[in-house]
């Protein structure tokens, strides 16, 4: 019988993320080099110790294969794999790295992610000339998610102002983080007055398009004590990915997600991760979370799908401060995708890096008080790919 799960089998012993933003003067290799070398330094490992690596990259123009890592690090022929799974690419690279360690195949591995978006222009995700069916409508990413907003407005009575509150909170958090893309606080009025991108989502409802990279070093807990963070390495409690219908994403009535008010892949990934981690009351047990706020509406729906609050209550709970950095469940203390930025392949690793630092009490931006257990969540594709990872302080 298979030994199921990876709970308590992996330790994060080092991590680093670059500043996110418009790196006009740097390419993907510069960014990935900065992140990986930073992670080695943080862990106190030499690059020669790395036995295998996985890199999350979404767009082919950032890098086609594992050689993207080899070309900057020259790791002397170790196995390196590019992992692509929409916006969960980075966290899936981490998942693969976890399995490499948990299986006993490797002692020390690298999980990293990078994306270079700005070279393709900054207005909306590139690639709409390469994807898709010739004539079926190809809505922009904000357009797809805004259809969920339209339905949530209709079902729950949420408003533009409720969406704006997500942006205001995340910009507020991001303003404290030196590595965040956008570092200015905004007001509800500003958010609501912004030009429409895909009605009802305006410019402040959409996350930043950014360049950036992040990296983590993993090993087994019993080996972790011989590295730099012997006292405060972080334990992986669970990691789950759920992939559901990507196309047609307008699922017919009766199918999963047909009501457009919940993302079933998130629900499923969360259920799997909570089960593995032994979490029964996420709202109480999770101290801080980096969740996928590609759009403000996504964050509201995430609260519900991740069981942080009851269905339909997300807007009210946010208004009440439940998800503020000092609230019951701190959500996106880094500023989230909204303010920190979203270089796709990097994001999952960047979230894990942020939560690692939060649990270590070394947050670079806002430190969530007394954070012991944290969660990272990505949602990618046409609502189809979700990943949830749960981290905790070492015993």
């Amino acid at each position, binding site marked *: 019988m298979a030994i199921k799960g990876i709970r308590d089998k992996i330790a994060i012993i080092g991590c680093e993320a670059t500043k996110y933003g418009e790196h006009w003067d740097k390419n993907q290799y510069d960014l990935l080099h900065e992140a990986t070398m930073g992670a080695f330094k943080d862990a106190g490992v030499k690059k020669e110790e790395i036995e295998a690596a996985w890199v999350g990259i979404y767009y082919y123009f950032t890098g086609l294969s594992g050689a993207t890592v080899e070309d900057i690090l020259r790791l002397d022929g170790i196995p390196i794999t590019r992992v692509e799974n929409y916006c969960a690419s980075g966290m899936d690279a981490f998942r693969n790295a976890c399995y490499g360690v948990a299986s006993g195949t490797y002692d020390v591995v690298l999980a990293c992610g990078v994306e270079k978006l700005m070279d393709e222009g900054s207005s909306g995700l590139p690639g709409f000339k390469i994807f898709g069916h010739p004539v079926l409508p190809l809505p922009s990413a904000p357009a797809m998610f805004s*259809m969920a907003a339209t339905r949530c407005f209709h079902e729950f009575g949420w408003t533009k102002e409720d969406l704006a509150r997500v942006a205001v909170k995340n910009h507020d958090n991001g303003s404290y983080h030196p590595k965040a893309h956008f570092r200015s606080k905004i007001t509800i009025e500003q958010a609501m007055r912004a030009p429409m991108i895909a009605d009802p989502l305006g410019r402040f409802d959409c996350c930043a398009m950014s360049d950036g990279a992040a990296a983590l070093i993993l090993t087994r807990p019993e080996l972790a004590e011989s590295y730099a963070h012997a006292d405060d390495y972080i334990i992986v409690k669970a990691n789950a990915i759920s992939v559901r219908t990507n196309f047609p994403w307008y*699922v017919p009535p009766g199918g999963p997600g047909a009501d457009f008010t919940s993302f079933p892949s998130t629900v499923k990934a969360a259920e799997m991760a909570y089960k593995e981690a032994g979490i029964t009351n996420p709202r109480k047990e999770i101290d801080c979370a980096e969740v996928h706020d590609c759009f403000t509406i996504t964050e509201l729906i995430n609260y519900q799908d991740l069981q942080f609050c009851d269905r339909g209550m997300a807007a009210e709970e946010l208004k009440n401060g439940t998800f503020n950095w000092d609230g019951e469940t701190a959500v996106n203390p880094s500023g989230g995708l909204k303010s920190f930025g979203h270089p796709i392949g990097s994001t999952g690793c960047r979230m894990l890096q942020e939560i690692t630092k939060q649990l270590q009490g070394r947050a670079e931006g806002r430190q969530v008080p007394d954070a012991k257990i944290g969660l990272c969540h990505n949602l990618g594709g046409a609502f189809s790919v979700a990943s949830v990872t749960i981290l905790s302080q070492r015993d």
Partner: protein
Amino acid sequence: MAVGIKSYGAYLPRWLLPRELIAKAWDFPSIPGTKAVASGDEDSLTMAVEAGLDCLAGFDPKEVDGLYFATTTQVYTEKDSASLIATVLDLRDDIITADFTDSLKAGTTAVARAIDTIKANKDIKSILVIASDSREPEPSTMWEYGFADGAAALLIAEGDNLPLIIDDYYSISANVTGPWKRANKDKFIRTFEVKMDARFYVQTITKVMNEIMKRNNLTPEDINVAAYYYNNPRLHGRIAKMLKFQQGVAQNGLFLQIGDVGNPMPFMLLITAMRRPKEEAKVIMAGFGDGADAILMHVQDRKALRELSKTRKGVAGHQKSMITLKNYNVYIENKKLLEKDRYIRKSSAVTMWRDTPSVYKWYGYKCKSCGTVQYPAQGHACVVCRADNQFELVKLQKKGKIFTFTLDHLVGGAYLDTPVPRCVIDLDGGGRVLLDMTEIQKPEENVKIGMEVELTFRKQHEGAEFHNYYWKCRPLRG
């Protein structure tokens, strides 16, 4: 057995341009009336589909044995349109299709050839003839007052009890002085001497109608309806006088209201006149362009014609729901008379061909296990019950209600001031689809959850350097 007209249909685009706006744009003296203007995502082929659907409403498309398409504004010069139109109309594939092009009488010529084909071939009992034109006038010329967009269809069929029976046709070939458009050279119509053009027009069309009356021992008093092409109301009146038609016989309303629609014009004049037909009325329909055709018919079944006028939108039905443009710029934009960089998507002629049932013919896939209708075909497992490969093709309906939507300002990475409504629609009879909406004014106010929409076949883009057609939705047209 006789041959006649079994059904008809028409299409007029959504927009009407008052001629005074053209006059104002160029500081010219105005002429009265309005003209029909297509949207930017329409062409002769998409309008032909609309007219064809109108004509075949309530009929089984599988019973039609051929499709002739007539236009001067063909969307390809190599590759016919008739076969694609027949595909979208869901006709059988063991049928004959042909394009009749390059002349403004292509429509009447196609009718004459349809008559011949049906008479000569015992297996061919009906041919759908669709005429459609979307001519581009050179801005600031007299052509701009005339050229309009539209399509009309006649279902020519064998039978003794048809609404209209065709008695005879007669044709003239004449090489005239103009106008013309050189292949691969001219964007706009050229002419050498308009007075000569007018003279040829009057002579030829008068002669063809005179000859057909003579051949059939008819006098002008015998004719109840004369539906002949014209692009100049003054000349139209002169012809009626020369032929000694009685008052009200020569159909003359359309130029003023919808303009010179080109090939479909004789069809439209006929369709308009057949709303209130006289018992056994004698009808001449005539087309002109480097020669002329006259088709002689008589009303066989008034009741059937009345019924058609109720079940087809025809000309009048479309006219009712046309919207008058408030400025000339929208017209320029619709007709793509301004050069602009336009978003080009990736495409594949192979994918389009393979997806013919879903993309062109509008079929969905019904899961035999749980009954869910899904669209398009994707993978092999049901998205609801997950059963493997239990799908059967089902024809989808072309009406539905909006379940959710957005107004997308980002198209292909470029920001648009005017958003594209993207709509998730639950079709009547099952199936959830995603379609862009066209011809919606003030979408911020007018697009709503629960809104009823209907499908319309439109040109989407020019990816891979061919015309990529697909369905859009639009608010119901009255």
